[in-house]
């Protein structure tokens, strides 16, 4: 028999995973999705309690949570768009200008792994590799 506690435990675990994601991932969209997952954990809590108490107050609360989450999604995505326009990146760590005066900016020391560029990457968008690569003059004639 599944009890209230099962639901609560699962909800807590979901919340925790979402929290870890929010704290560690640097892509703002992923952070946002993790926050939504935390919302879902809370929503499960509410619905389980609603079931437990045999009334609908919890469900009503979850409806409001969904409404707020929708608002949040709208504003957050608009903000992401703005930030992306400015920084050409979705990295949350790019925005450090609100730090205290005199504190050096946090920079990443370990370099990113360089992916070896294989020959395939230079292939033409479609079709097989032509036997004869045309010179520029020929290309211009065509």
């Amino acid at each position, binding site marked *: 028999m599944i009890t209230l506690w099962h639901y609560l435990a699962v909800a807590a675990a979901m919340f925790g995973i979402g929290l870890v994601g929010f704290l560690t991932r640097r892509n703002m969209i992923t952070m946002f999705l993790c926050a939504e997952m935390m919302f879902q954990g809370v929503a499960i809590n509410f619905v389980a309690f609603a079931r437990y108490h045999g009334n609908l107050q919890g469900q009503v609360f979850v409806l409001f949570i969904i409404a707020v989450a929708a608002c949040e999604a709208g504003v957050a995505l608009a903000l992401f768009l703005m930030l992306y326009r400015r920084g050409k990146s979705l990295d*949350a760590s790019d*925005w*450090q200008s609100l*730090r205290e005066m005199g*504190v050096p900016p*946090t920079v990443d020391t370990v370099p990113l792994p360089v992916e070896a560029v294989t020959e395939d990457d230079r292939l033409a968008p479609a079709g097989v590799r032509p036997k004869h690569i045309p010179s520029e003059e020929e290309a211009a004639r065509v």
Partner: protein
Amino acid sequence: MSDPIDLALVILGLPLLACILAAYLAITKRSAAKYAHVPLILGCATGAVLGIILLLKVAADHDHRFISDPMTWFAAGNLKVSFQIVVDPLSAIMLAMVTFISTWIAIFSSSYMHGDKGYARFFAIMSLFVFSMLGLVLSNNFLLLVAFWEGVGVCSYLLVGYYYEKPSAAAAARKAFLYTRLGDVGFLLGIFLLWKMGGWNMSLTAMFDYMTKIPPDQGELTAACLLLFCGAVGKSAQFPLYVWLPDAMEGPTPVSALIHAATMVTAGVYLLARCAPLFAMSPDAQIVVATVGGITAILAAFIALAQNDLKRVLAYSTVSQLGYMFLALGTGGAISPVFAVTAAMFHLFTHAFFKALLFLSAGSVMHSMGGVIDMRRFGGLRKLMPVTHLTFLCGAAALAGLPLLSGFWSKDLILEALTKAADEGKSYTGGYYILLLVSLVTVFMTAFYTFRAYFLTFWGPERIPEEAGHHAHESPSRMTVPLMVLAVGAVFVGIAVEPFNHKFSHLLEHAPTLLQAQAVSHTDMIPHHFNKWLASIGTALALGGLGLAFVMYRKGTETLPGAIEPVFALSRNKLYVDEVYGAVFVKPGGVLAFLSSAFDGFLDAMTRLISSIPRFVGWWVRPIQNGLVQFYALSMALGLTVLLTFVVFRIAR
């Protein structure tokens, strides 16, 4: 509208309305600011007409007094302060006089101040000034009176410091404000003492009724009266607080006219007249008042002898004349208070006309001389400015007390009061005798310095300073018409209301406050009469002064015989009063200020030491604020975890 109270409220409201309109113009409409004088002139003119109607109504009423229904302003415990106005002969005369004089001053200044950049501001403050004075005159409650009293003080501060970019003007304004404030301390203390003594009443009429029924302790009453007198000394520029008034010349000349004639300095005299029932019960306070008045009168007259600044001569003459008024008021303990107050108020009344006239004439002179007011630099303006010359002559003659002019009658009344006090007074007859002599000497000196100024300005060869430029001609009609009107007043107002028909004294004889004072003073009413001997002596002295001035200054230049040079030097240096004050009060104050500053420095050092601790801590933890959102969230989550751990395991144990 026919109700006297409503009428009085309308008179009170008109300048306030004018002030609001002018202030609005000053703030917003740059283009319409040149019409800022219209509200004040209209308001004051209407007020003057209504004031005369009101005066007639009061005279016709058999009670001679109207009190408005009290309207609670605030109340706390025993203290009930209500907005209540009283219209009786005293306040009605003041109302009519203030509005009438203000009207002509306003008309004069609309021309005098023409083109000034603070034109609208000037008229806004002028309106507020008139409003405050009218409120002061009307209020029947001590705290309300104080409020308007301070309003007058603020307005004088603003107007004296009107040219606030000029350091001397700012300093003069500050001086005026601080000196009057010094007196106000005593004034407030006196009010609170009276409040306690007067059965916890703040209303003037209720307080007087209470105290005449239940006579208070004589010592306390004297103390309270003297404290009230402190306020009057500050406001009316009496010895030892008179030094601000001559410096107040830094303001525009119409302001001086307003301060000296209609508003501000007359407030102190009015206050004492209104509180006559209190002073009548305290002869000790009265002799102090009279003595201070006498000292001021002769001191100021002496200083005025050798001043070279035309306006300064007039300013010292005002101080001196106010001293006269206080002399008259001070006789109220020895002879009938009605007579004393009548004498003082009558002098106040006539003085308002001729002093306003003199100041406006001086303003006219100054206007055409391009702002120069030093009598050594111009002279012989008789031909150049005929109207100003004649009107100034009228004013000077009235001030000197030449026979049949208004100053003569009022001064005569004061001398009469002093004679009575010296002759038949109940107490301090010797003191009053000395004061009589003092005032007679002052009459001579007054005539001398007044005509000295007149001869130096208008007689002798024509001399015009280069600053005058093309201004050096008679002033425009908007300035000369008020001069002429006031000149007529200065000549005829005295003879019109007192010496033959006794209208003025009849009116005041019926003032309930003064009747109350009469009742408590146990003195006899003094019948109207004319003391030929006294008048002759006064006339002789005045003519003597005039003659001496004519002999010495008819050439329009100052050439002093060597014998009196030291005397004039003393006078020129104002008896070194400012220097004495500097040595006695300012220097010790400076030492005290230095000590305080050193202590302040020590405290500052301590504060810096203490503040360096959080600064150090801040420097230490500053790297935490690294601007990374996720770092902040992480700190929050970790903190929450720690908190939760604590909570959970505390509960588990």
